[in-house]
């Protein structure tokens, strides 16, 4: 179905909702095609290819709301979609803060945001499979201890996103991405470890060479071999970019407007206060061309923008949709996000911590006894209290060098202390997704082990 047809459908659905008794309506339509090729031990393991689309409708009846979605865009399916949403508004409660954004807040960024690359549409499946093969081969050939693999995967997605509401907003954009990842398994004696590496871009031409991805993954798996469990102790902890990024995921939850108005965040009520060390400046920017958190407008039809969340340690802004903004007496920051069903939630654009000047080596060189974290598992972060306790693996720092592999330990602290205690920020910021951080050093955390 052409994009034009789908935008007409979105506007038609809004009109139908108004005719059925809604006082306001907003409609999201998403359409996409996906392809995945998995290669394992040099053979094609699976190929998957398909397209899908669906529509979501949210309506207001005064200050009551109802939502529905469907993947059935037949005439019958669409009639049911409208009737469902209107029916549901009857059972919800009048909420004085519910509603759409003000018309003057709505709009879209002009210009090419480089979210779509045409090269994926014409790329032959054979080339995609070949790049996965090549990445895995590079990992397997890198070292005899890489004797097994969970395989390499090439995926791409091309989609179209359409949004229209009853306040006159109608917009759409196309987007694409592709990624290549490889997960080699290293073995030496009784020790077996897996790691992975990947590259991702809006188009095929922007991917890093598969050989490089494979070799990086192999190096990462190898350096985890023969890991030991260290004694329980308090030491400086360095997060490499891949794990440092997860601290920004935690921070996102803490500045999430919904968590803030419910007091479910340790950063609620802290605007204008110093919550982190002066090395910490955190930006959310949904306008950077080509990146994965970029969009011309958010999921309420408000233009994406650049928001300074933390400026040299001082909390400057929460991330808000129009609902959370009204609850907090603030303005939306254009961070509304939703799937097809339900009310708008909150998402981030490109959320990153501004880079510093030191290299990762320089940061490590200043530590006599510490932990360099390369892997985190588990869900032990409580943003209500800030309590932080996660499973970790990585390398032990001894006299300024990465000395030996460590696993089956935990790291613990409280985000309220960890952020002010953030002593060093690396220069190695790069985006492999919509959240990015350079290497970070936290002055002291508890490593739980033997």
């Amino acid at each position: 179905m052409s994009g034009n047809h789908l935008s007409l459908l979105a506007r038609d659905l809004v009109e139908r909702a108004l005719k059925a008794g809604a006082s306001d309506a907003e409609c999201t339509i998403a359409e996409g095609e996906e392809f995945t090729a998995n290669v394992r031990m040099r053979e094609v393991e699976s190929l998957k290819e398909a397209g899908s689309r669906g529509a979501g409708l949210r309506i207001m009846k005064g200050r009551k709301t109802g939502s529905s979605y469907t993947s059935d865009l037949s005439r019958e399916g669409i009639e049911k979609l409208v009737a469902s949403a209107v029916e549901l508004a009857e059972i919800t409660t009048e909420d004085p803060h519910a509603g759409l954004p003000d018309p003057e807040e709505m709009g879209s960024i002009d210009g090419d945001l480089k979210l779509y690359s045409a090269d994926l549409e014409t790329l032959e499946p054979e080339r995609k499979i070949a790049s996965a093969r090549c990445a895995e081969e590079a990992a397997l050939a890198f070292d005899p201890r890489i004797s097994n693999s969970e395989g390499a995967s090439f995926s791409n997605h091309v989609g179209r996103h359409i949004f229209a509401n009853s306040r006159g907003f109608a917009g759409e954009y196309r987007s694409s991405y592709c990624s290549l990842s490889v997960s080699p398994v290293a073995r030496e004696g009784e020790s077996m470890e897996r790691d992975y590496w990947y590259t991702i871009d809006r188009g095929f031409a922007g991917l890093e060479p598969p050989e490089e991805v494979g070799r990086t993954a192999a190096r990462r798996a190898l350096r985890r071999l023969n890991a030991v469990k260290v004694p329980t102790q308090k030491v400086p902890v360095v997060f490499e970019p891949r794990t440092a990024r997860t601290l920004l995921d935690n921070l996102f939850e803490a500045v999430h407007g919904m968590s803030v108005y419910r007091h479910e965040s340790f950063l609620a009520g802290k605007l204008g206060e110093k919550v982190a060390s002066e090395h910490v400046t955190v930006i959310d920017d949904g306008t950077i061309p080509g990146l994965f958190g970029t969009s011309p407008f958010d999921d309420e039809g408000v233009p994406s923008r650049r928001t300074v969340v933390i400026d040299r340690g001082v909390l400057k802004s929460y991330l808000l949709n129009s609902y959370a903004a009204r609850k907090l007496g603030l303005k939306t920051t254009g961070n509304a996000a939703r799937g097809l069903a339900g009310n708008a939630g909150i998402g981030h654009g490109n959320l990153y911590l501004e880079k510093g000047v030191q290299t990762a080596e320089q940061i490590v060189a200043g530590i006599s006894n510490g932990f360099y974290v390369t892997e985190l598992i588990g869900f032990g972060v409580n943003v209500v209290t800030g309590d932080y306790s996660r499973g970790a693996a990585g390398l032990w720092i001894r006299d300024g060098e990465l000395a030996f592999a460590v696993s089956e330990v935990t790291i613990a602290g409280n985000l309220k202390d960890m952020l002010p205690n953030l002593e060093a920020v690396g220069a190695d910021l790069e985006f492999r997704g919509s959240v990015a951080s350079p290497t970070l050093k936290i002055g002291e955390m508890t490593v739980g082990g033997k």
Partner: protein
Amino acid sequence: MRFSESIFATRFGIGRGDLENYLGEALSQGGDYADLYFEYLLTSSIGIDESMVKSAAQGVSMGVGVRVIAGERTGYAYSDDLAPEKIRKAARVAAHIAAGPGRTGSFDLNEGVAHNLYPVLTAPTETAFSERVELVKRADRAARAYDPRVFQVQAMYADNLRYTMVATSDGVLALDRQPLARMSVWALARQNGEAPQRGHSGGGGRVELGYFLNQKTPEHFAGEAAREAVAMLDAVDAPAGETTVVLGPGWPGILLHEAVGHGLEADFNRKGVSAFSGRIGQKVASELCTVVDDGTLSGRRGSLNVDDEGQPTRRNVLIENGVLRGYLQDRLSSTLMHAESTGSGRRESYAHIPMPRMTNTFMLAGESDPEEIVRSVPKGLYCANFGGGQVDITSGNFVFSASESYLIEDGKLTRPVRNATLIGNGPEALKYVSMVGNDLRLDEGIGTCGKEGQSVPVGVGIPTIKIDRMTVGGTA
């Protein structure tokens, strides 16, 4: 359910001959096996926050996935449109994985005898919204009434009704109607202007709406959430390092899910990337431990009449008296490993390739009195409730997060402890189980398991157990 009465036959006009044609199309380039997975899914959810019903949503999605297996290779395509030409197109795309002479002839589809584990006449999804909205309102009121220190409550009720149909080139034709409902309550409590603490509870299963009216009521879940939040107000920092850990009965069974369950899924073992690879017959736990995965429990969240490859679910013994007995098999891995399917092939939806997954995973009851177990510990940690967990299959290291736990001092539970992560190694951790209680309990029906981007509902269970040595992460 009979094929001729199914929604796929009556509403979408699909006949047996059509299914055979699609399978023929799927195997037109060769291949060993093909299957079709049809799905029609109705969902609804209602949410309350600040005592206002702020969200209510319902939806419908449908589609068909076509899979072709040739040796170790899998081709997969799906369509969210059930029109014949769209299904045939998906079958042709999936067929590309194979390269050989096509298979012709009929597939002689037969409906076998299936379990009837959730004989739900009216699924919750089919009831009036006016009845269901009362559940979240009652939960909100009950949590607030529990204790004046409770100041924020959120409750969510969600249900779905999934119709599935699997047709395979082996002649299997399996239909199912899978209801599922769940209620969740979150409460925040605070005192003396200090930082708030959160409590959570929830549950449900493949049940009728009456389950929430007569058995596990909104007041039950609300009371548990509020109790946990209030209990945590006086929590002290968790200890860090190795200690004795006692797990309470029920949801702490997530330990088994992470420590052994995932590592025993056959795909990882076929590829030799699991810490349990090649260890069948070896001792991986203390002899007090017998762990099963059972998809046949009546009405449970993790139960299925047939798995998503059309195989009846079973009770599978994973560990028997400490010895590793078997893996969880799907069609692909069982064929390649020359084993039989254990009815463990599951998928999130028609858009996903099935793989070996757990259903309801639990440890059988032992003989110890649970109170005796706690009394036997001079110093340790008692974990009553958990958040989520995760495992690194290859190294075997797993973690899970305690959301409600208490210090054990001189054989008694004393102070509550703040959220801490526990970490262990799969093939080692259960060797330190020194006591197993007689109080096996299954969880209340809240679990969702994620693997390679696919989420499926699961259950866990465990009696009170004592683990002599485990690393606790501490909170400061």
